[in-house]
């Protein structure tokens, strides 16, 4: 009976909803004074709770609005919130609304300093509008800190320390992570997805490994390739992202580049190590918005060394069109980036090192936004990216007088004697990255609940078919032990196809108070191989794939307790596919010299070498996952907005490289050149690295943000950002081997023992105190930032376990000691005791760093910016505690004082200069 009642009432509600033929609200929003539309104004139907964005021409539309009387709210930074009430919507008809927004005047006017629109930085919304924890960084803030690339921009986020801007060092993004081990840091940056105009950058097919210098393979993309001057705004989602975003763990960084019509603006930046010039603008061509940006930057790493520098050229062009009377918004973008990371050979360098890392990227992105009326909206992103990687490394090799082999297959042959030589090798990759995302969404407003549905699919194909590692086999790059080395082309490395399907419903309604519930699920398929529809019936997976099948639900709940208080709670699972070089690592060659006889006469020298090849390919190497939990409380009290967030992220199955010993045999070959009668004459241990999936990371913390509106008469905005994070990383079931074998009497042979891997724990509490003062009559914006790190601690974990887990014996047998026997005296000789000092917690004292940024207008359309980091040059030198007694080690916790100047001018206004009259 109860069941019947439920069915009948659902049908009634459904018919009630359906019987009303919905109406429509369409309109236009403009600036009252200028008549120009603000780009991207938020429009909201207050009673239903749904929001939409007005486009660049100020037009907006709500479809499927049930008949009724509604209030519309219009919000855009810099303008007063405008409310238009009593808008009647009739069945099947369209209601037209025209809104005019008034620029807000709160204790000082909104204004431009030169070419920087300061409005957006002054007037942030005090309460977040969306359920996900996001930070929005505007172009004004980016210009004010004189960022050279996206890497410098991230210092505005909580928990990230300010560092020297520029292109000298690698910059990667690690969200909500305190440094523990190198592997954990790599996973944190690899798991942060950087999306440029809807298309993600990917580091999966980067095979630049074994190149003798710093590479980003296996970790996050190098953010230096994204120039900051062309960024309109950046949104960083640190919390639980919508299911629209996949193949990530830590978070999403969404970059929107400038693509609107604007006068050309020239910028030049100079500081002790970096020079940068940028020209960008946009114009209307045949009814389309065309935009361009040209950027050149150069950073010198060490002034004393000539020729050690990093340069970058970045070009971008975009074309925006409206087709079919505005129903189809199309944007086409083309990007070209070229990096030069050069270190020339220094004439006095005895080791004759020289290297370069030259890379260029060409990328095409297409965004389509199609409005199909009542049926909803289709959005598509398609992009193709080609990167040509080219690294070179040269060095004098003098490891020893040695015997090597040039054999490319397994087997035995005569060897070659080498001494000291110069080795040159190249690693060249051709990386292709094809991306497609298609989704459909529609809004179903209702009396009680409104649904905003979205269904989509997302595909990505990455492949690297470059020439690979290239060098002359008789002059191999430096290696260690018996590890030989051979060239390797990448065309034997297949591509990887990642696919996903996602669906999401954003439910808005009222449960005593307004709420928004965002539920979604995303099925991610890494290494897609095919579909097995029969699997639905026999409980087998429907998707056949190699590198992991992950079902990721995401839930975000926003509850408005009052006009000034809201609660946000979220849970989500996310996953990330593995990099190609973990699935198809370079094969390892071992050259064992069976016989070697040197002689004064080079012609009489003789040697026999046997080559063994270890193929480390693991086609089933899986991706890794992260479970995320988050809860936030936002409160607005008068002119102050406060936000408190607690989070917990648990990463499992992260990849790392484990060093494992291998046993090789040396043979005596009495009947050479015949191999008959060969006998084992000795056993040798060597090492091999294997990618493993066993890193776990536990990251939890608190973030607090306090922001005020501009204080009248002081013209100052005060903001405080606090971040507390504790991160712990360890290997689940991981073991570590010693570096060398030893003879153990109780076991009667030489062994390489292994123990449980150790982990690391770290904790950090830091605060950013920021004062922004705006003085319009002078055209000045001054920012003072104080960065305080209160707690900065770390220690080792898992160093209490001194018992051996197992050992590799000389016969090649890997023995695992059963748990109950590990403490037995038989294995006493292979216990590992850690020195007492390893137990010490490194507890660093409080440190401060003060930074100032000033932007001042020069004349119309032109401004100059000055910044200084660490103005008191407090290097915060710290003497480490956890060192062997009697020795000492120091670290500089703050970068040295650094400053820079930037000048910009809008070229259009130059021709109106009154100064031309002088001539």
């Amino acid at each position, binding site marked *: 009976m109860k069941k019947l009642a439920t069915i009948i009432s659902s049908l009634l509600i459904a018919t009630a909803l359906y019987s009303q033929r919905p109406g429509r609200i369409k309109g236009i929003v403009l600036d009252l004074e200028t008549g120009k539309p603000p780009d991207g104004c938020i429009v909201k139907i207050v009673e239903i709770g749904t929001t939409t964005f007005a486009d660049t021409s100020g037009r907006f539309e709500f479809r499927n609005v049930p008949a009724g009387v509604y209030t519309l709210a219009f919000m855009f930074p810099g303008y007063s919130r405008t409310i238009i009430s009593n808008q009647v919507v009739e069945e099947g008809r369209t209601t037209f609304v025209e809104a005019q927004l008034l620029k807000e005047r709160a204790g000082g006017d909104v204004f431009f300093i030169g070419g920087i629109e300061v409005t957006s930085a002054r007037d942030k919304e005090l309460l977040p509008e969306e359920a996900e924890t996001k930070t929005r960084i505007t172009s004004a803030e980016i210009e004010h800190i004189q960022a050279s690339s996206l890497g410098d921009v991230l210092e505005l986020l909580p928990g990230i320390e300010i560092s020297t801007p520029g292109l000298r060092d690698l910059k990667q993004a690690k969200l909500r992570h305190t440094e523990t081990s190198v592997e954990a840091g790599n996973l944190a940056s690899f798991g942060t997805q950087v999306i440029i105009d809807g298309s993600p950058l990917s580091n999966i097919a980067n095979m630049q490994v074994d190149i003798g210098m710093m590479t980003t393979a296996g970790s996050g993309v190098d953010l230096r390739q994204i120039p900051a001057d062309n960024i309109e705004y950046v949104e960083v989602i640190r919390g639980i992202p919508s299911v629209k975003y996949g193949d990530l763990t830590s978070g999403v960084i969404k970059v929107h580049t400038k693509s609107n019509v604007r006068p050309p603006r020239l910028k030049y930046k100079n500081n002790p190590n970096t020079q940068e010039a940028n020209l960008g603008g946009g114009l209307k061509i045949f009814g389309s918005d065309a935009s361009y940006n040209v950027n050149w930057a150069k950073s010198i790493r060490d002034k004393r060394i000539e020729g050690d520098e990093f340069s970058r050229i970045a070009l971008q062009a975009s074309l925006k069109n409206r087709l079919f009377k505005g129903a189809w918004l199309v944007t086409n973008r083309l990007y070209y980036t070229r990096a030069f990371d050069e270190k020339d050979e220094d004439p006095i360098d*005895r*080791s*004759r090192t020289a290297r370069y890392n030259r890379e260029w990227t060409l990328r095409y992105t297409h965004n389509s936004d199609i409005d199909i009326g009542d049926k909803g909206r289709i959005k598509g992103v398609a992009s193709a990216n080609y990167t040509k990687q080219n690294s070179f490394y040269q060095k*004098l090799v*003098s*490891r*020893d*007088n*040695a*015997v*090597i082999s040039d054999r490319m297959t397994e087997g035995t042959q005569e*060897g070659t*004697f080498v*001494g*000291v030589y110069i080795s040159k090798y190249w690693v060249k990759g051709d990386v292709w990255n094809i991306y497609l995302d298609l989704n459909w969404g529609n809004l179903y407003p209702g009396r009680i609940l409104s649904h905003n549905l979205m269904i989509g699919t997302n595909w990505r194909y990455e492949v690297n078919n470059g020439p690979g590692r290239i060098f002359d086999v008789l002059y191999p790059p430096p290696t*260690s*032990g*018996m590890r030989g080395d051979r060239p390797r082309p990448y065309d034997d490395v297949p591509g990887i196809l990642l696919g996903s399907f996602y669906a999401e419903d954003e439910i808005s309604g009222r449960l005593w108070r307004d709420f928004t519930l965002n539920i979604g699920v995303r099925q991610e398929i890494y290494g897609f191989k095919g579909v097995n529809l029969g699997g639905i019936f026999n409980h087998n997976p429907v998707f056949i794939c190699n590198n992991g099948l992950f079902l990721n639900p995401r839930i975000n709940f926003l509850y408005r307790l009052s006009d000034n208080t809201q609660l946000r709670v979220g849970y989500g699972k996310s996953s990330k596919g593995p990099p190609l070089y973990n699935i198809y690592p370079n094969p390892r060659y071992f*050259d*064992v*010299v*069976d*016989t*070697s*006889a*040197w*002689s*004064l006469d080079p012609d009489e020298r003789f040697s026999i*070498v046997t080559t063994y090849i270890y193929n480390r390919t693991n086609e089933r190497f899986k991706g890794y996952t992260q479970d995320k939990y988050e809860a936030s409380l936002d409160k607005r009290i008068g002119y102050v907005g406060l936000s408190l967030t607690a989070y917990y992220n648990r990463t499992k199955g992260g990849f790392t490289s484990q060093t494992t010993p291998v046993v*090789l045999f*040396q043979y005596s070959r009495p009947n050479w050149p015949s191999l008959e009668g060969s006998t084992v004459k*000795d056993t*040798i241990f060597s*090492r091999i690295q294997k990618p493993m999936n066993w890193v776990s990371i536990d990251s939890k913390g608190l973030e607090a943000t306090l922001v005020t509106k501009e204080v009248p008469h002081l013209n100052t905005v005060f903001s405080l950002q606090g971040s507390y994070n504790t991160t712990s990383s360890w290997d689940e079931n991981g073991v570590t081997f*010693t*570096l*060398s074998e*030893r*003879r153990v*009497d109780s076991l009667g042979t030489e062994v390489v023992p292994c123990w449980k891997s150790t982990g690391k724990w770290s904790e950090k509490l830091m605060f950013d105190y920021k004062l922004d003062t705006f003085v319009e009559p002078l055209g000045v914006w001054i920012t003072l930032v104080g960065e305080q790190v209160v707690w900065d601690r770390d220690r080792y974990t898992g160093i209490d376990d001194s018992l051996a887990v197992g050992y590799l014996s000389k016969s090649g047998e890997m023995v695992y000691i059963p748990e109950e026997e590990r403490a037995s005296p038989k294995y006493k*000789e292979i216990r*590992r*005791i*850690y*020195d007492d000092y390893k137990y010490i917690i490194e507890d660093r004292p409080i440190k401060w760093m003060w930074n100032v940024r000033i932007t001042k207008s020069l004349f119309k359309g032109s401004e100059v910016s000055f910044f200084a980091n660490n103005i008191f040059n407090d290097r915060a030198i710290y003497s480490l505690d956890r060192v*062997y*007694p*009697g*020795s000492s080690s120091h670290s500089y916790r703050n970068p040295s004082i650094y400053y820079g100047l930037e000048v910009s001018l809008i070229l259009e206004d130059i021709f109106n200069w009154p100064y031309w009259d002088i001539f």
Partner: protein
Amino acid sequence: MKIIINAGIPLLVIGCLLLTGCKKETPTAVEFDMTFVVMDESGFMEALTEGNLVPNANVRIRSVEYGTEYSGVTDSAGVAIISKILADRYDVMVSRELSPEEVEQVTGSPQARLLSGQKTSVIYDGSKEEDTIYVNISQLGSFVISEVYYSGAPEAGYYFHDQFTEIYNNTEDTLHLDSILIAEAYKGYATDADYVHCRIVWQFPGDGTNYPVAPGEMKIVAQDGIDHREQAPLSIDLSNADFEYARPAHGDVDNPDVTNMIEILHDTRFDFNYSVFRDAIVIAKVDDVNTLEFDAGGNMLIPTEAVIDGVEWLDDVTDYSKKKLNAVIDAGATGNIPSYCGKSIERKRAGEEGGKIILQDNNNSAMDFDVLDSPLPWSIH
């Protein structure tokens, strides 16, 4: 009133400055004279002179921190006065050569011997004006490391595979190199007086009598026993070396005419090469190398009693914080030569006896070694 304040205060300030400026004494550091009394514990001096004070002994003091040195010679009363030394922490080294005539008077056989003694890390700050140093007959009972050529060949890039170690029989009897260990100490354990923590350990082959060394004879252990002038023209020819460190399975060249050493413990290095900057090696004799234990870092522990000799070299001889060997084995360090310059370190002569050279062994490389401009295998300069 205003005039008093306006003029008075500056005048007062100037007055005070003048007063303090009048002092004639200039500030000085604490300098004082130190008296050293050298006494012999071995009984030798008593047998010679009926008193155990040691005349004509060289007293050398060296600042631990700064490396500054002062020296003096004891008078007939066994007393040396070293004047105007600064308050500091010092190492004191005393040595007195005993001529063959003196030795013949006491023991009956004319051979040069050495009395030596030391005190490490003592603070002299003027509170005490005298100190007594005890000397003893230095050990001459075994092999010594007589030369180490470690710095690498000049003008050959980074070529340092021509390194060798020369071992000398400093006694009057024939000794055997069989199963003696040569090991490289690992950093960070200099405070351990009981064990030498060794990262790399190699052993001479033989079962007891295969490799004899006559008195006054020396043997060369080369890193690679080949003619190095092929790769580095300014290097030396070691194709006639007595022994070589060989890891042929790993690709290391092997000269079939040169006896290979046995690898006991080795790390990831390609061959057993010493550091061209700073390093420390010891030779030791144990009954069974398989019974030796390991420390937490995987280094083999060689007991100090088993060590026959040790030598340590540093690139900066004033910085003893980088020392690897405990003061019991080697209280000082030699070296101070740039890398890849072709120079080597050789032990000094203590004297001669019947045509056989006796080398100094004070267990202090700072006292015992000299720097040679080019290596001299198989001979003492």
